[in-house]
């Protein structure tokens, strides 16, 4: 169950995972971008985890807002406004809730996806993190039992790896055109890891 506490655990764990994955994500981004996605994400979620620990929220929505604002001032790259938008949409969807039920959980993910699309104008298949958030949202619309949360981890991981063959149409990788094929999208990988940690803390 996603509660104010499990959400804080999720953010702390995700921040740790990103610290470990920093070089991996930088290398992925170096293939088709500017090589900073790991640095951006590790720095952003370190700040988010710290600010959340310093000023614990009383509801999930409030916690999401703290994370969103922390990311805004600490990421620097495209992933900053994108992940900030995700957590701000969560904040609106989960406002005032100390625990989030399956229906609201799905509504939050749907709102985040909508926010990502408004922010980045990417379509599904453009080799961006949308390629992960979109199928995750679809899976959630199909199976809304908390016990099947594990399904979204599988969906996300598969979708992130499937970006490898795609040609980037948005973001820096789009400059590469066809040469972007053959490398996974770094933001899709960091999104898949987000779902791993979110589900792990929630189950």
């Amino acid at each position: 169950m996603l509660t104010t506490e499990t959400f804080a655990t999720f953010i702390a764990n995700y921040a740790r995972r990103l610290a470990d994955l920093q070089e991996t994500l930088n290398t992925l981004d170096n293939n088709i971008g500017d090589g900073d996605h790991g640095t951006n994400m590790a720095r952003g979620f370190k700040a988010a985890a710290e600010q959340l620990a310093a000023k614990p929220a009383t509801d999930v929505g409030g916690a999401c807002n703290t994370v969103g604002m922390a990311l805004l001032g600490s990421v620097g790259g495209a992933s900053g406004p994108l992940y900030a938008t995700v957590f701000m949409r969560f904040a609106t969807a989960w406002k005032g809730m100390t625990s989030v039920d399956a229906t609201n959980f799905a509504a939050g993910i749907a709102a985040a996806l909508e926010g990502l699309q408004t922010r980045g104008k990417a379509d599904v298949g453009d080799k961006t993190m949308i390629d992960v958030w979109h199928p995750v949202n679809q899976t959630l619309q199909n199976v809304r039992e908390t016990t099947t949360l594990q399904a979204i981890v599988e969906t996300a991981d598969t979708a992130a790896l499937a970006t490898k063959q795609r040609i980037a149409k948005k973001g820096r990788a789009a400059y590469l055109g066809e040469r972007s094929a053959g490398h996974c999208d770094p933001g899709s990988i960091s999104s898949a890891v987000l779902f791993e940690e979110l589900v792990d803390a929630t189950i």
Partner: protein
Amino acid sequence: MAQVSIVIVSHSAKIGQGLVDLLRQLVGQDVHLESAAGFGEDIGTDATYIMEKIQACPTDTDVLVFFDLGSALMNTEMALDLMPDAIRQRVHIVDAPLVEGAVAAAVKARGNFASDEVITSAMQAKGMDKIWK
């Protein structure tokens, strides 16, 4: 003071400051100019910094934002989402090349034109041949 202010959103603080220096030479103190560029000392952009710089523009001016890359655009739009409607309505993100668009806009703004005419001038910088035959 002109009807239009100009804000530069670039991934590099040096580009932002240098461009403001270049524009300053063209417009003196007639046009309000702000650089909202860089992510601290690093390459990047920062929505909260962009928001501050937009809010630093005189409230009786329209604010034209020029940006370099897509992630600068996203952070500018993020900044707009964080601002009150009254300010946001005065802000226009311009679809023009950063340096060439800002130069054309600055000169036009100095002539005290309204924002729509300044934007048109900036957007014309887009297709323009820079090398005369």
